[in-house]
């Protein structure tokens, strides 16, 4: 399988503290890969490092878009990373609260649009066309995620589960080839989690978007993922398909006291 994301020997120090230690990870085209580990293992830091929010201390990050050339994205700003086709969601929901649901998704389209100040003021035909298309495209994304009934609602007024899904919709609007989901099921009930499971599979199968996710819900992780990486104290301690991971003694030790059965 061709890789789409290649992270090699990623290391991140905060002052004297090594938060990530020499982590390598690949996501193949069309794969769903999970990154798991106990609280504070460095999973979100890993996301922040590869998406450009924190600069990594050492190591390399590269995206290979389908049918394209390898692009090294280490040290790029977050917006450039997104432009190169890697989008993300946040663990603690970070929607634009005082904008409507549709506008949240339209923000995701921003980097695929081109209108500038003159376009905004004069509304030339090209800008009008672009705006119209953006509205339609964004609505399309909402339909795919199943949020169209909230289209003109303010993001802050959405129920919790819908807010999580809106984060995914917003990220999808940037036309990523790989999507990073940071605990998408956090705080969801069993039914919502099941729906999320279906949604993620659908994104992969229909939209051909590869997925890397951080998740604590082991049932979801085991049923969704093709492969799993386990980190603890900033180090990678295991990788492999779900069945292998479940039987791995190092993983069990790291999770001692936490349930790991599906």
């Amino acid at each position, binding site marked *: 399988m061709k890789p789409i994301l290649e992270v090699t020997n990623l290391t991140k120090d905060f002052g004297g503290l090594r938060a990530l230690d020499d982590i390598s990870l690949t996501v193949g085209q069309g794969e769903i890969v999970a990154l798991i580990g106990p609280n504070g293992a460095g999973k979100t830091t890993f996301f*922040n490092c590869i998406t450009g929010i924190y600069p990594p201390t050492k190591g390399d990050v590269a995206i290979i878009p389908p049918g394209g050339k390898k692009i090294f994205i280490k040290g790029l700003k977050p917006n450039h990373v997104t432009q190169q086709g890697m989008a993300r969601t946040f663990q603690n929901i970070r929607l634009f609260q005082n904008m409507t649901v549709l506008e949240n998704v339209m923000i995701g389209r921003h980097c695929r649009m081109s209108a500038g100040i003159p376009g905004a003021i004069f509304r030339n035909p090209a800008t009008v066309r672009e705006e119209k298309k953006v509205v339609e495209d964004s609505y399309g994304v909402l339909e795919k995620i199943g949020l169209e009934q909230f289209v003109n609602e303010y993001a802050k007024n959405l129920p919790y589960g819908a807010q999580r899904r809106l984060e995914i919709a917003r990220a999808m609007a940037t036309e990523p080839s790989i999507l990073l989901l940071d605990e998408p099921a956090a705080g969801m009930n069993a039914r919502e989690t099941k729906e999320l499971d279906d949604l993620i599979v659908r994104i992969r199968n229909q939209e051909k978007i590869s997925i890397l996710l951080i998740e604590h819900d082991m049932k979801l992780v085991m049923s969704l993922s093709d492969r799993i990486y386990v980190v603890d104290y900033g180090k990678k301690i295991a990788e492999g398909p779900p069945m292998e991971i479940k039987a791995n003694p190092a993983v069990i030790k790291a999770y001692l006291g936490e349930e790991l059965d599906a």
Partner: protein
Amino acid sequence: MDYFIELFLGGLTRGSIYALIALGYTMVYGIIQLINFAHGEIYMLGAFTALIVAGILTMLGWNQVAILVIASIVAVVYSAAYGFTIEKIAYKPLRQAPRLSALISAIGMSMFLQYYVLLAQTSNFLPFPNLIPDFKFLEPIEHIVRSSEIVIYATTAIVMVLLTGLIKFTKIGKAMRATAQDRDMAMLVGVDVNKVISMTFIVGSATAALGGVLIASHTGQINYYIGFIAGIKAFVAAVLGGIGSMPGAVLGSLVLGMSESFFTGYISSDYEDVFAFLFLVFTLIFRPSGILGRTDTDKV
């Protein structure tokens, strides 16, 4: 050489006064991450209160030292009360609000207090009596350093030591440090956060009031506007030293005071405030974490 020493000591005086204001700034910022714009006004209110008390007592014919002590005490009490009240009115309701809301509220408060004093008292400069007695032993070097300056240095040093002690060794100091680190967590472990924040405002305001009394007595005049520029400069000093850090506030104040003094002495006195503001701009752009501060990354 005499000129150099004069500028040096002048810088030390400025720096000490900035320090007395900057300490309050840095304490408040450390605890609620708010630039308390009205802090300079507290300093001004301290000076005005002292002027009123001193004015009355002088007319009653009291002696200089007694006037100094009583005027200082009243000024400290009143400024502390103002600090306490301002927090309750303008900042407490905004604790959960975005930081900019609280900042705008602080700007409004600053403006309100300035015009409150302007309307209730006067917009003119008022002469301020010299409350600090001339020390006999200073006579030979009087042209270089005045006794009021010696008092200013000493007060700043004592206040700094006392505040450091308060933060390091007392129970309320411990609670302040806990609240500064993580307000929610402090609340969970039983720290009365409201009380801690009130205490911070009271202590910070009291310190600023001392600065107000001393500088007014040193320069001999005050008006409603003295707090604004002094407040902004003290803020620069606090940032320069590393906001949230008390030794940093004092260090930053001394550095700023000295640089200003040498700049006006050797280069240009017309552009004194331009220099201070440039200092501010460059500090914030190139070293926002200050000399003694640490860089903190936003948690994502």
